[in-house]
């Protein structure tokens, strides 16, 4: 008995040992796939872009340009320019991993030029925004260890080239094709091509290439239907918290009471009774003022904080204003006035915002005389060209509420035209914030990150 047992044991060990290889070969991931259709990746890129364009840094930019006030906790500190580099960790990760990495997979794997074109536009949108927010950033050396930073100008050049590439890709797509997973435009290649042109125009405006900006904007977004807006292509927008308007979500949570638009510069500008009001015989901003109220107690479906109110990212409105500003910059007064009036007529027809129906909205067409010294848009008696430009910039400040663009404009205009810049006071100290701090994670991990990182009060190269 005992001897038999001994032999069985020895035999058993030999058998078991020989089976070890396959016994241990169980490490394949049972929970996640190692490949998925590219169409499903585009969607994640789009959400990452939404958070970059419309999320935390956008709200901080509003704190710094008189559109929101920080009342408590983090937002109060941010309002007072107390910002730590960790504040932008998420955005850096959203852009490089959430957008660029995903897009490179699409460009490498996909045969579908619609998906590839959209992927490139989103990447260009994100990278261009990063350059505007942070100045020099890593881009051409992306994905290498310790990538060196490209200059801001180099980044903008690459972004223009990428947008050109996307336009070529989209040009080969059948006109009727629409990507079912497209959350942002929800339209065919032609619509996306318009978005690409408006983005090109936007970045040319930032780099002060006004002629190119004007030319691109002529092919830019020509109708709201072709706008790129958060959740525009998604029918269930606002059906649950996690697919809702971002203002709505943040106001719904524990940080909801920490900021508000009450008593801000923009509210004063829009208030017919305010001392710095932009209302006059041809303009009544009462309803738009109501629409732009952001506060925990004033969330409403008629306001920008409504659970399913669209948040534009690249729009017909912006495109009209690029046409207006760039032509004004090129000294084409009448062309510029025509584009501005085009926007005013659009607004006057009840488009562009909601607001309480009981309040007035009026945007009558301007005439050249309105900008002459003593005209309703030129009480201070500056040149008509300047007065028109000032009005266009002020219109951009109001119309592009909810994006980074008023912040980018303010930093730009303080340099190009300090005399007509909006009279927004710093929230503390004597300086305005000009940029965002490079992310803590990038500082920690990249030996080529600048040290020390540029101060937020230091203008980005394009605005120096």
């Amino acid at each position: 008995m005992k001897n038999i047992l001994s032999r069985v044991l020895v035999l058993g060990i030999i058998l078991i040992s020989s089976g070890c290889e396959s016994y241990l070969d169980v490490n394949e991931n049972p929970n996640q796939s190692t490949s998925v259709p590219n169409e499903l990746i585009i969607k994640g890129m789009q959400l990452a872009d939404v958070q970059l364009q419309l999320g935390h840094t956008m709200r901080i930019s509003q704190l710094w340009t008189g559109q929101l006030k920080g009342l408590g906790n983090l937002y109060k500190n941010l309002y007072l320019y107390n910002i730590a580099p960790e504040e932008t960790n998420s955005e850096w990760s959203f852009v490089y991993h959430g957008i660029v990495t995903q897009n490179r997979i699409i460009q490498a794997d996909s045969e579908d030029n619609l998906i590839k074109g959209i992927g490139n536009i989103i990447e260009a949108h994100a990278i261009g925004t990063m350059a505007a927010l942070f100045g020099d950033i890593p881009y051409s050396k992306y994905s290498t260890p310790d990538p060196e930073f490209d200059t801001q100008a180099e980044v903008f050049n690459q972004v223009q080239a990428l947008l050109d590439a996307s336009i070529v890709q989209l040009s080969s797509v059948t006109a009727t094709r629409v990507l079912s997973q497209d959350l942002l435009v929800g339209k065919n290649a032609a619509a996306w091509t318009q978005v690409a042109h408006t983005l090109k125009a936007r970045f040319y405006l930032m780099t002060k290439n006004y002629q190119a900006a004007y030319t691109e904007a002529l092919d830019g977004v020509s109708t709201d239907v072709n706008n790129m807006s958060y959740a525009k292509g998604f029918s269930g927008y606002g059906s649950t918290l996690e697919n809702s308007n971002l203002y709505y979500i943040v106001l719904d949570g524990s940080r909801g009471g920490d900021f508000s638009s009450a008593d801000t510069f923009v509210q004063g500008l829009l208030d017919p009774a305010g001392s710095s009001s932009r209302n006059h015989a041809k303009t009544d901003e009462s309803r738009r003022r109501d629409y732009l109220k952001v506060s925990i107690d004033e969330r409403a479906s008629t306001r920008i904080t409504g659970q399913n109110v669209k948040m534009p990212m690249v729009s017909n409105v912006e495109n009209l204003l690029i046409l207006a500003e760039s032509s004004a910059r090129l000294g084409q007064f009448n062309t510029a006035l025509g584009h501005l009036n085009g926007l005013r007529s659009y607004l006057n027809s009840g488009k562009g915002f909601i607001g309480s129906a009981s309040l007035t909205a009026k945007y009558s067409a301007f005439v050249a005389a309105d900008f002459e010294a003593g005209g309703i848009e030129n009480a201070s008696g500056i040149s008509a060209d300047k007065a028109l430009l000032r009005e266009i910039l002020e219109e951009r400040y109001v119309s592009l509420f909810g994006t980074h663009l008023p912040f980018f404009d303010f930093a730009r205009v303080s340099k190009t035209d300090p005399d007509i810049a909006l009279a927004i006071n710093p929230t503390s100290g004597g300086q305005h914030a000009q940029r965002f701090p490079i992310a803590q994670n990038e500082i920690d991990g990249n030996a080529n990150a600048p040290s020390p990182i540029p101060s937020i009060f230091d203008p980005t190269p394009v605005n120096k």
Partner: protein
Amino acid sequence: MIMRKFILHFLLLFSVAAFAQKSIKGKVTDESGIPLPGASVLIEGTTTGTTTDFDGIFTLDVRQGQTIVVSYIGYRKTSRQVDNQDTYDFILMTDNALDEVVVSALGFKENRDKIASTYSKMQANDVVRSGEPTLINGLAGKASGITISATSADPGAGSNIQIRGASSIIGQTQPLIIIDGVPTNNDNFEGFGSDGDGGISQQSRLNDINPNDIESIQIFKGASAGAIYGSKALGGVIVITTKRGSEGKMRASYNTSISYDLINVRHPLQKSYGQGANGKYSPTATNSWGDLIEARSGEADAVNTSGEYFLANTGVAYYPITKKNSMEVYTDRNFDLVFTTGTTQTHQFNLSGGNNKGTYYMSMNKVNQNGIMRNSNYNKSSFTLATTYNFADWLKNNSKVIYSTNYSNRIQQGSNTAGIYLGLLRTPPDFDISGYKGTYFDKNGNPIEDRHRSYRRYLGNSSSATYNNPLWTLYEQTSDTDVNRLVASTEFTATLKPWWNVVLRSGLDQYTDDRVYFFPMFSSDGATNGRYQNETFNVTEVNTELISSMQFSWDNLDLNLISGFAMNDSQRKQTYLEAVDFLYNARLQNPAVAATKNYEERNRLFRTVRGYVQSQFQYKDYLNMNLGATYEDASSSSKSFIYPSAELGFNWGGLVKEDMTKGLSFGKLRLAYGEVGLPPGAHLFSTTYENASYSSYSDLISLDAFGGGFRVNDDKGNPNLEFEKKRELELGLDLRFFRNRLSLSGTIYRNETRDALLYLDLNPSEGYNSIYQNAGRIENKGWETEFEFALVKGDDFNLSVFGNVFANKNKVLDLSGVSSVNLTGGSSVKSSAVVGQPLGILLGSAALRDANGNLELDKNGFPQLDPTGDKVIGDPNPDWRGSFGVRANYKGLKLNALFDTSQGNDLAERTRYVLYGFGTHADVGNTVTVPSDIVNYAGTTIAAGSTVRGNIQNFGGGDVLLDEKWYTTLGGGFGGSVISEFAVGDASYVRFRELTLGYEMKNALVEKLKLSSVDINLTGRNLALFTNLRGIDPDVNQFGNGNGKGLDYFTNPGSKSFLFGITINY
């Protein structure tokens, strides 16, 4: 050896002619005549022999002139030459050097003095006496080198066990638990439904084991003892031996106890200033920087009864306040509505006995605990059956089944707006929390029922309460856990030859943990529309091990050759259902009430195979050497590894001293080297696609909510993962004096873990957020001492003192170029790994300083935020720890007292700092009369003689006034934009951990009742705490059982207890 055997056999062959074979018989007993069953009886120089039966009897065929050698563990080996007699009785003397029998890491009984690795041993009583309802907490302060940190005093909450500092950076650093030779699960999972930084304190699975079933616990600290378990033993090994029945009459005992538990430390809160800002009252303000309460009129509040109002379930109606007049302060009343005296009742019943064929042990245990926070509880039942059976002289079986089940509701805590402390401590002193639920009527009289009334929504006029009313957290939300656990093991021991035993062990450890989190509509933490979460863990672990143990003996040399082979299969299925957007304000805890449901599933399969050889040499009584090697491969590792071990023990005492009864009675030098490891996480070889959500700040949007989608994982896969490896060298000295009355032992060690696994944060521009990689190195250096001194040893009176002191210095040596690894995600003070610093160092926002480390003040004399990012702001690791105890008994009366201490550890008191910003902390409730003109943070000058709220402080630029302007910007609050450095404090403490008074009654009445004894116990636990830290027990940890530590953020408090117990033995 084969040659030697051959020669022996050859000689034996020739000796046949000289002496005829005969059968002899004998009995082996100890000094007091008790038979020793299982003693080895060998013919010297041969492998022929037998073992004694259950009466100590043996029979053996021998030849005259041969020598019989009888040995038994814990006794001196004795030999006798065979002469013409037929009966040979042996009386074995207890080994002179022997203190006690211990159990090796493999579960075999060994002689204590022949083990060269470092361990501490606890007896059953040491663990049970403190009356802790959970096993792990009962180990605290009882051995050197061991740190037990509780997550909170929540009923059933888990605890972290750490031996000799952390040896892994992000991996599991808790020790391997071996119960009766079988690895046993001590999981502690947060899961999807709860976060590390906020949620509920999860359980530790070791606490499923009934402490009363434990016979002894041994803690092996060094790598040499653990090497046999390879990658399971990185954190050390705890060997638990459970009780078995013994031969003889049936024994029964019943024990019951009740304990009363109280919160042990409270956060101090101010009671002088009301809700509001800028010195003005506001009933909707976030903070308590309002008016001076005693300056109010004291009349009833003026209210507007014409519009909206809230009718609480208490019957009280709340109207909009137009003028705050009331001077009532609710701080203490609010506290008492949340906290109460907790109670714990236990019942324990044991039955055991047996005969010469087998034994049995049965136990039943029941714990009913109601926590110090109302509505929190832990109810546990466990059943144990352990048997031994002898099929034949050579074949024995040893089996055990434990079934343990518990049900528990614990309270949401931490960084969680639906948590208890977050809501309670931020509540202004002039807000009454009692009417937490009721009906809200809008200005048109439309009612909304079951609305949540919180201090920021005192009329309940919003679906969002912002922060929970703490009573809502207690009574409306639930966080239930339902656990069923089965641990079964069986072991066959076959004595194939007198010198060869083969052991086959198999163990099954299976549990299900079913958790339900329920947040009705109007709850905070993103649950304004209601949330139901159900998470289940189904874990099965099967271990099979075959061990061969061979015993060889020569003149002065013994060799025990052990080899073994083990397989481990571990499977886990985790399912998670989240149901949100309730269709109505339901209290039915079922996903049927929700419009949106998300389901997730995680499966894990992990296997290892292990083979090992160990050779234990013993030369005479004074030299022992143990050499071993363990081969291991795991499914999650791309490479196998061989873990070596070597131990050398030298009992020099007997060599330097003839008479061991005076002065030195024992002296031993130990030297040990070993390696242990940790396997990589399962299923991480390849980069996968994941579901994702994006939140930039409090604004999460998810792919799921947009109809689903994927992204390539932000954690890059890695096909080259391999084991983390730790090597350790230790040197120890054991001394005993005065007939073993004074014992001292000391050990110094150094260990280093290489290839430590890390989620390396990549810089974002590398395209991924992190990669899981063998990338770190970390070391621990330290020393440990233990002592015990029997001051008085007598028949009636005994008194001894005992204690330990130990220190560990940890250092992160390499992180592959990454400057820091955050171990506490989601917190703005980060317990981190930083090269050159101890693991867990606190990183956070700091004050701006010049090159000499002096504060760079702003023009008003206030510190400024260092805008360049995180700095080292504290070290949560203690410089040293220790404990001291007294044990005494006089006749039947027993006393035990135990103190322990931790010195030099920092804690980020984030609760305190956040409460500064909220204006509720006692520190910011002071009123001062300024002696001279003084400025505040905003630069406003406050004239001399003014009486204002605040504190005067000098940062180096003259006196400044710290008031609301300071505390709500840099000097209080949360996030990277406050100076978190000022939130760090010294958390050193001395704790009176335990005091027990016991009395054993053995009088006539007891005898008349046919009982053997009745024991009565009175225990106080955590009776006193001496520390400079205010507000929180320094033992708690916001991040529960992970490697991150030293953080308090609205973490649930600790407790102290008074326990009364009675045991009836039959």
